[in-house]
């Protein structure tokens, strides 16, 4: 006698989200309960504090950057559509999608969109380039106080050397894609649902 249906999310909205993100009906309702349980203020949107309340996220060194990725430029609240849109990047790529022609727009969870998400985590000022400083900043977040400035600097320099092709001492999105050619991005940036 399962009566777990979503009342506050209308059928049309679920259909729209399904088309846009590719999640199934049950996944959307599940994530909607999650969204509402995080939304302590009960106003239909999540602010940064709502994310920071998750302890496992708070201890993640890149927690703040990930939280930032949910909020569009300059805004402080994200609604359910926005929430789903960002989460859609992590949907696993199904086999039947791999062979489809890319007609109108690319699905949100395509390889290049996943890479774009990761690129944006590095590219703090959103100028479509990862400068040496930006790389250093993110590396510093991940290692904390355990590595000295010089050592971290040399790691950053070496990484840029390996990736940079046009010699502008920063990594553009295309160079980023090239460096990660051999990496199984689809698998590393996908979250399998347990239901």
């Amino acid at each position, binding site marked *: *006698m399962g009566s777990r249906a979503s009342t506050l999310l209308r059928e049309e909205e679920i259909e729209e989200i399904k088309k846009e993100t590719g999640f199934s009906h049950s996944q959307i309702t599940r994530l909607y*309960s999650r969204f509402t349980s995080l939304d302590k203020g009960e106003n239909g949107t999540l602010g940064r504090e709502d994310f920071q309340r*998750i*302890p496992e996220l708070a201890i993640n060194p890149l927690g703040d950057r990930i939280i930032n990725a949910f909020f569009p430029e300059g805004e402080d609240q994200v609604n359910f559509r926005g929430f789903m849109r960002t989460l859609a990047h992590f949907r696993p790529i199904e086999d039947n999608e791999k062979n489809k022609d890319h007609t109108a727009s690319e699905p949100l969870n395509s390889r290049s969109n996943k890479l774009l998400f990761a690129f944006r985590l590095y590219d703090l000022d959103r100028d479509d380039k990862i400068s040496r400083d930006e790389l250093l900043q993110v590396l510093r977040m991940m290692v904390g106080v355990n590595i000295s400035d010089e050592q971290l600097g040399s790691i950053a320099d*070496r990484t840029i050397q390996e990736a940079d092709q046009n010699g502008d001492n920063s990594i553009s999105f295309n160079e980023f894609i090239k460096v990660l050619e051999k990496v199984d991005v689809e698998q590393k940036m996908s979250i399998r649902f347990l239901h």
Partner: protein
Amino acid sequence: MSDIFYFCRQGVESIMDDEVTKRFSAEELESWNLLTRSNYNFQHISLRLTVLWGLGVVIRYGFLLPLRVTLAFTGVGLLVVLTSIIGFLPNGRMKNFLSEQVHLMCYRICVRALTAIITYHDSENKPKNGGICVANHTSPIDVIILASDGCYAMVGQIHGGLMGVIQKSMVKACPHIWFERSEVKDRHLVAKRLSDHVEDKTKLPILIFPEGTCINNTSVMMFKKGSFEIGSTVYPVAIKYDPRFGDAFWNSSQFGMVNYLLRMMSSWAIVCSVWYLPPMTREEGEDAVQFANRVKAAIARQGGLVDLLWDGGLKRGKVKDTFKEEQQKLYSKMLVGTQEDRSRS
């Protein structure tokens, strides 16, 4: 460059579902038990279901609730009156005997008031004098459930109002440990009072809930080490409620005490199982934290609960930065390792 993927995925996974935040709200049920409160997405499914639910409401509020409230008042009233009377008797075996009888009787009335159906397992392991009883904490009702089967000395803060009256009269009949709010902050004082109590073998075993806060009975969270430092025998007890008849979890940020009690009394019943586990003592070379974790694992195993290392205090407070620093340290080691490999090759 690709290392970022690891943290990224972990972060988003924890956004989708994490182990900790869901412990602080009531458990979700597989199928509905005809209480609106446990059905989060209430929707009109069928006429028959609504009729059944309506009937349920009538029975619960019209019949069961008044009965239970009367019993509750009787139980509490008797407790206050009788313990005060016993307080006038001189200290001695007679007093202890009477006080035990009175306490047991009143708690049993309160148990009936909640229609709590309790199954006690392994009563041969029941806590003895001079020991400390530890249990997982789901609601204040845990106290009533345990105390109706044996006599304990309670530990807690002195409250004002009705609770305060009850506490003051209880302490006249037999020694409980009530703290002033200011004293709770002084851990040494607390520890001293507790150890004085356990050394006196005529005094009753102390009842403590080391989690420090109410958890929703699907898991056991970190045990605070204070009670495990004292060094006497620890008697673990596991309490597991059956959520199909009524959810006993007290979400103190959502409901106040009176609201909570009303909800308890208007559920179908409170069904729970209590397991008395064999006593444990701290072993050589084990410090208080390890001992606490050992006891916690035993309780979790018996009750079928998830054993978590997270602190129950996360319900209200933020997580400490030390955890983040640990993650950072691990990654640094990895990063330096791979860099050295690269420079060598």
